[in-house]
């Protein structure tokens, strides 16, 4: 049941029509997404000198750090001030960061991965004080609803479509096994987007008759580095039929790959995941175990977040919260420099969106 | 016995104007003296006179403020100095052998420790000290007395390989030993001297000085009073130098008339423990019962069988007609049993805490106000108590770790006697206490007895027990082999019963 070519998903693998269908879905998302304005244009210059407070749950998390870095860049262009608060994973500090942003009269707050329930009160207070809060790469986006999928008091959300991500990695499994995917779903249920991703993975797999979700495991965020390699190996051994492991985030995928190697299952089981962090893409580029990734752009997310924030400050309607994603396999990463998130971002998403936003903000 | 060997040129130890103060306390002031090769040199002085500090400076553990000292011929060959510190410096969780290899250059096979060789080196030394425990015994399981033996063995081991010791320093090494065991150590000291080394013998026991030492240097509050030829002096004179006043010899006051019909307060009936074998005894209120014997005779266990009756394998202990069966000491204590344990540093004090706190770990009722500790009140109480027991300290809030060994012992005694216990159990209560104070303390104990306390006086010091007690039991192999009324005049008989096999009374 294993594909002849384990490096990439190519047409001749796909004979069953489900596999073909999945290949089409994949094709649709395999190109660099082009920029579609998330909302009406506006003149950002009037906001010069305003302050955006970014409160991050833990800046040791790469994606979140990238968001901060790129938000600073974008804000710099606009002459916006940016303050950053790192909550070091401590719930009390999350609140403190929000509270201080409010007390110090920030003009907008960007919640960089904060746990919505924990800071719900502060978000409400901010709203009451007329400070818009933007939730970035955290909650699954739902267009045209207050909070757009995050807390109802959130002004706007910015996040990749979790369901799509799940669907695509499931598709990868189905396609490259020619409709005989026996998958292990690797969950971390404490993460906000987890339910949505897992749900769409399972549904997609269930649509395929010969496919099956063999097992679903749940690993605490803290235990990723210590537990996942062993767990993966264990799963592969106890369910030898497993041919695909689908971690909900590719940071888990890195350790899952180690697990597959250490279980000496290379060539029998593969890994597909989403998020597009450089380390994971580097593995996909090798393509022997980690074969597919659904990349999002932290930089794009940052620009979008700043855009949302400004719309909030200008009391406009929130923009479309959905971040584009791009499906990549080793073929797509041919010649891509996967060493830094910057290089990856440029290679996979190009500079187009930045120009797009500049235009949207009336900078060019 | 004494045969001064004059061999080497430079003396093994020459001290010149050593001075050391700790904060405000001037522990040692401008001390100078020599230890000639071939002599046993006694170092005397009241508690806190600076003996141990002097020893620590000589063994390089405390840096002198001024002055200096010269050890050994200072020649090319490595110096062999054996030091037994007052606090032994042993590791409880290691075996005797391991402890004897602590800090020394150990024998090696290749890069590894050669335990067999070490064992072979140690065994004869242990034998020479007549130790009845093996190299692989855990030090924790040894009685304080035997721990002292271990420390001495370690000191001797330095000289064991090849050349003999240049200098042996014994800081109250015999404080926990009496009788033949003490004699054994003194004989060893003489042997070291006979081989041309020098011995610095720190002790509070004049008898030891008179029997074993050639010369004696007396310290008082850190300064040298005088250095004398032992042959040309006597106990009275030495005591006068130590205490700076005339000391009346310890006289036995006749025991207060007791109504023999009066029921005994503490009754042990056929008690058997680790070492004690069906031992029965009674103590009446106001009576001091002495228990002694040779080290290892098992009497050292007795106190801890009464404080923790659950340790008895067999037999019963009644206090005032009530059966004791406590699993913790505090249960026994609540019935009015007070104990002064041997082994001060494990069972006695919390060194980092103040004298005041150590005087009353359980804060006394009269020092509480509204359930809180009344600090000023307790402080003045502590000051009074400390001076009543002649404790030399900077003040009630000085950490007890900064007190000299003997003074720490006094604090312990004070703690227990302040409770006015119905039954008082003393285990080597005057260990490391200087002579004048020792006599004072014994008087205090007598006073407690006269006030109606029943006292169990457990010590390996026959003279002390005989002098202090109304009645004396002698144990051997955990069994009572001799009973006699107290009194210094009976000391010889008791001594014989303790150390000479064969002497038993029906």
């Amino acid at each position: 049941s294993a594909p002849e070519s384990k490096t990439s998903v190519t047409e001749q693998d796909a004979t069953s029509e489900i596999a073909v269908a999945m290949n089409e879905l994949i094709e649709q998302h395999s190109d660099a997404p082009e920029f579609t304005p998330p909302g009406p244009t506006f003149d950002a210059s009037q906001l010069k000198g305003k302050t955006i407070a970014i409160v991050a749950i833990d800046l040791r998390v790469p994606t979140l750090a990238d968001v901060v870095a790129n938000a600073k860049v974008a804000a710099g262009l606009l002459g916006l001030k940016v303050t950053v608060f790192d909550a070091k994973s401590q719930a009390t500090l999350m609140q403190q960061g929000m509270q201080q942003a409010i007390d110090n009269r920030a003009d907008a707050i960007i919640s960089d991965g904060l746990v919505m329930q924990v800071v719900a009160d502060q978000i409400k207070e901010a709203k009451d004080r007329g400070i818009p809060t933007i939730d970035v790469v955290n909650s699954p986006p739902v267009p045209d609803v207050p909070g757009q999928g995050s807390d109802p008091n959130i002004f706007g959300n910015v996040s990749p479509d979790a369901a799509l991500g799940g669907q695509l990695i499931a598709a990868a499994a189905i396609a490259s096994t020619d409709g005989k995917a026996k998958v292990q779903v690797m969950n971390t249920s404490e993460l906000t987007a987890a339910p949505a991703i897992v749900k769409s993975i399972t549904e997609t797999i269930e649509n395929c008759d010969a496919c099956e979700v063999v097992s679903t495991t749940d690993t605490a965020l803290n235990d990723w580095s210590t537990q996942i390699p062993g767990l993966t190996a264990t799963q592969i051994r106890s369910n030898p039929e497993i041919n695909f492991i689908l971690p909900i985030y590719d940071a888990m995928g890195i350790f899952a790959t180690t697990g597959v190697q250490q279980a000496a299952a290379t060539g029998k089981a593969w890994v597909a995941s989403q998020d597009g962090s450089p380390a994971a893409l580097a593995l996909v580029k090798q393509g022997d175990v980690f074969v597919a990734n659904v990349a999002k752009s932290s930089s794009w997310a940052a620009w979008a977040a700043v855009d949302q924030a400004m719309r909030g400050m200008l009391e406009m309607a929130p923009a479309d919260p959905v971040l584009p994603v791009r499906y990549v396999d080793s073929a797509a990463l041919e010649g891509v420099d996967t060493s830094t998130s910057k290089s990856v971002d440029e290679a996979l998403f190009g500079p187009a969106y930045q120009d797009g936003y500049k235009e949207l903000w009336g900078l060019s | 016995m004494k045969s001064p060997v004059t061999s080497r040129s430079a003396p093994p130890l020459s001290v010149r104007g050593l001075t050391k103060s700790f904060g405000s306390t001037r522990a040692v002031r401008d001390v100078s003296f020599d230890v000639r090769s071939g002599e046993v040199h006694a170092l005397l002085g009241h508690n806190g006179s600076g003996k141990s500090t002097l020893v620590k400076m000589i063994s390089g553990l405390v840096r002198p403020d001024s002055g200096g000292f010269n050890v050994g011929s200072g020649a090319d060959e490595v110096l062999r100095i054996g030091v037994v510190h007052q606090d032994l410096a042993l590791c409880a969780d290691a075996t005797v052998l391991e402890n004897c290899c602590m800090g020394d250059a150990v024998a090696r096979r290749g890069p590894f420790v050669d335990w067999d060789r070490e064992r072979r080196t140690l065994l004869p030394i242990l034998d020479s000290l007549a130790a009845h425990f093996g190299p692989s015994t855990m030090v924790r399981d040894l009685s304080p007395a035997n721990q002292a033996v271990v420390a001495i063995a370690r000191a001797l081991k330095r000289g064991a390989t090849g050349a003999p010791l240049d200098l042996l320093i014994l800081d109250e090494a015999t404080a926990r030993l009496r009788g033949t065991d003490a004699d054994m150590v003194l004989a060893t000291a003489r042997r070291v001297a006979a081989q041309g080394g020098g011995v610095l013998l720190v002790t509070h026991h004049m008898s030891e000085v008179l029997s074993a030492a050639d010369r004696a240097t007396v310290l008082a509050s850190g300064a040298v009073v005088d250095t004398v030829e032992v042959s040309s002096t006597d106990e009275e004179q030495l005591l006068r130098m130590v205490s700076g006043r005339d000391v009346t010899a310890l006289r036995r006051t006749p025991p207060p008339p007791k109504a023999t019909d009066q029921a005994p307060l503490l009754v042990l009936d056929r008690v058997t423990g680790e070492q004690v074998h069906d031992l029965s005894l009674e103590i009446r209120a106001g009576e001091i019962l002495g228990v002694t014997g040779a080290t290892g005779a098992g009497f050292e266990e007795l106190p801890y069988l009464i404080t923790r009756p659950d340790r008895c394998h067999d037999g019963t202990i009644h206090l005032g007609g009530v059966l004791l069966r406590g699993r913790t000491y505090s249960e026994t204590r609540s019935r009015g049993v007070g104990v002064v344990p041997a082994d001060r540093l494990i069972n006695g004090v919390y060194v980092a805490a103040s004298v005041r706190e150590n005087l009353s770990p359980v804060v006394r009722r009269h020092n509480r106000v509204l359930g809180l500790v009344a600090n000023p009140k307790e402080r003045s109480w502590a000051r009074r108590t400390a001076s009543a027991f002649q404790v030399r300290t900077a003040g009630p809030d000085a950490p007890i770790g900064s007190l000299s060994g003997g003074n720490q012992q006094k604090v312990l005694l004070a703690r227990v006697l302040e409770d006015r216990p119905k039954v008082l159990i003393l285990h080597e209560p005057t260990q490391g206490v200087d002579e004048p104070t020792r006599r004072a303390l014994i008087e205090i104990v007598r006073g407690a007895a006269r006030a109606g306390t029943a006292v169990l006086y457990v010590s390996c010091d026959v003279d002390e027990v005989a002098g202090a007690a109304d009645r004396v039991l002698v144990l051997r192999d955990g069994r009572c082999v001799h009973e006699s009324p107290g009194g210094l005049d009976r000391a010889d008989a008791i001594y014989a019963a303790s150390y000479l096999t064969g002497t038993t009374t029906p």
Partner: protein
Amino acid sequence: MTTSSKIRTDLTVDSAAAGADSPSRDSSRGEPAAHLQKYALLVALVALIAVFSVLRTETFFSLANLTTIMSIQATAALLAMGVTLVLIIGEFDLSVAAVMGLSASLIAYLTTQHGVSVLLACLVALVLATVVGLVNAALVVGAGLNSFIVTLAVGTLVQGLAIGIAGSMTIGGLPTSLTYPFQSRFLGVQAAFFYMLVVALVLYLVVGRMPIGRRMFFTGNARAAAELAGVRTARVRVGVMMTAGLLAGAAGVMFVGQTGAASPSIADPFLLPAYAAGFLGATAFTPGRFNVWGSVWAVYLLAVGTTGFQFLGLDNWVINVFNGGVLVLAVGLSRFFARRARV
């Protein structure tokens, strides 16, 4: 001398060479250095605040900020106190964070998913927390096992149970009847802070002024001696370990009350800081001894450090570096004064 095998984490001066230099805690000798040491933490805290205020006057030294820090850190302080008690009796309790998580998530679960009354839920949580403390005590005091590893294990176990009961996700939207009593403000500071102060005061009296306090110190530092001096050490240890559990539970209650949300693992990041505070606190007030006020001050010192540096808009990594530095500095400082105080 002979001590039993143990981890030395000396608080007082390095006591090698027969503690030839153990510091005097004799306050009667009123040397400035001695006092400087006692209050080194306060000095450090004030200094930090001053520095940040100068560097970022407009923002940092706003009443709002200080009150926020006071309010937010109350929970951490509460947990640190529990830890302090355990440290005093010479044990470790690494299960406190898990217990805090259990209590918080349990309350969130019971009130939101089962409509259990707030009071009842809190009661259940506190009782459970105390029971965990009792289990620890049973294993450590009863069975004589090593507390570090036992509590580590019990922590894992407790967190497992908590997840089993409440699930691993963060539960939010708690009834105001729970959040109000903690979030309502007095002088701009949340009520939680004042509850914490009350607990601190009580514990200070118990540890610092009541006889039991001295028994605790003897139990922790010279158990055999304490035993023979009539201290019921077993009782003391059991009592303290249960109290630590209770306090961890209380911290959980306060946490869920202040944040209005909880998950079983949400309290994990509090563990090491609590110990840091405990050890740092031991360098002040009664230097060389763990003490309640010290721990509380330490919590706030560290909090001011953590947040203050963020105000300077430094990079995240620089902030970490500084935080580490502040901690070392604070300990070093009072150590330095300790030396001075003795000469």
